[in-house]
């Protein structure tokens, strides 16, 4: 589902140009508005759709996801820390909202503070482990962490 820009809503702020990991969001040379220069190369991360402060970028959904003529729109609310999607079918009968959290702590907080982490000892430098590797992925305290070793049981079927 590549993205496209509504030129009348875009104000040419450059958020999408800056964030696009494929570098395919660019500024039109005639109108100074953003556009997707190569939808075939869009890997559909929707970073631009979420970053746009004017909701000027939309998703063109695939036909197997929603029939033609539908609308898939998103609102990423940084201050609330949520992302909301609304999917609406062409006939308007299917119209639903999805809401999910995207952060549980204020932006920029909750990151591991490397400055306060102790420097690695000589022994640690000589091991194959990465510096400050989280404990749950380390294999030096009793082998690989598995579901079994953590007391988790797999259930059959779809149970979410």
């Amino acid at each position: 589902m590549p993205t496209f820009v509504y030129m009348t809503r875009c104000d040419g702020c450059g958020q999408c140009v800056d964030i696009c990991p494929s570098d395919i969001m660019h500024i039109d040379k005639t109108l100074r508005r953003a556009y997707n220069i190569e939808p075939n190369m869009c890997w559909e991360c929707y970073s631009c759709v979420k970053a746009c402060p004017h909701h000027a970028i939309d998703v063109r959904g695939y036909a197997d996801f929603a029939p033609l003529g539908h609308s898939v729109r998103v609102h990423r609310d940084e201050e609330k820390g949520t992302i909301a999607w609304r999917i609406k079918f062409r006939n308007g009968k299917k119209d639903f909202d999805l809401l999910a959290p995207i952060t549980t702590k204020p932006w920029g907080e909750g990151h591991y503070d490397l400055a306060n982490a102790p420097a690695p000892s000589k022994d640690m430098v000589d091991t194959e482990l990465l510096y400050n590797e989280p404990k749950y992925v380390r294999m030096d305290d009793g082998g690989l962490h598995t579901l079994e070793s953590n007391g988790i049981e797999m259930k059959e079927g779809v149970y979410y």
Partner: protein
Amino acid sequence: MLNTNPFDAVTALISTDIQQGYIILMAVLVFLGTVLDMMHKKSAKYFSLDTEKNNKNAKRSVGGGEKAGLAIGVLLNEVITSGEFANTKRRLSHLLSMYGFIFFVVATAVMIFDLAEGAIWAQLWHIGAIMLCVGGYWFWFFIRVDVNAEGAKWYKLVKADMFILGLLLTATFGLLWSYLQSTGNGGAVADMGWTTLFFVLFVISNTFLFSTVMWSKFAHMFFKPAAALQKRVAHADGGALNLPADFDLTDPAVHAKYPDVPMYMGKNPPNMGPGIRREPPNHY
């Protein structure tokens, strides 16, 4: 310099009638350019189709009085204070250039048509040109998205630069011409010296600015408020341009419908801050 009407000295070279005729011609060119631009881009047709589409999504009809209220909102927010810009620097730059241009154009018309007396109009003309230069060059060298987000060099010109370039050249040549007149070093306008050169450049840049409306961004001042009103009406009638609802994260109904929210964020999540907008979009 600031108190002198720069057009006084032009009368020795060009009669007042021709000066007034030129202003009228420029106004006609703006009108024609806007109409041609509208016909070429089919913008009026697009807006009417878009309005029709939005009306289909509407959950209630917006009355005439409410629409007038929304139009006042557009005037106060989007038009007068450039409230549409999400970026404060762009907003300030736009305000400087917009009011600079308005002061400059109004003062020019008043001085050439001799509509009012007083040094205030000459001062307004100069202040307008200075504001235009400050806002415009700030935009041109630092804020312009081509330079700021795309990483293009400031001297790389594209078609979209016609309008801002026309504005900047007009204001810069106007100020230089007025400065040369005031110092007397460049001679009078009729002397065919430096002052005349900058006067000619000023006229050329003005003609360029007002005659290229069809190809430049000049017409945005007419259709941007229309687009802003359409957006406000779409939100007022409940259609909300098919955007998701604005959920209240403390609402128990929202908690029941989306249990992930209270589970991970708590029942009364704090303000998470500006997120992506903590850094300007120039990581090229």
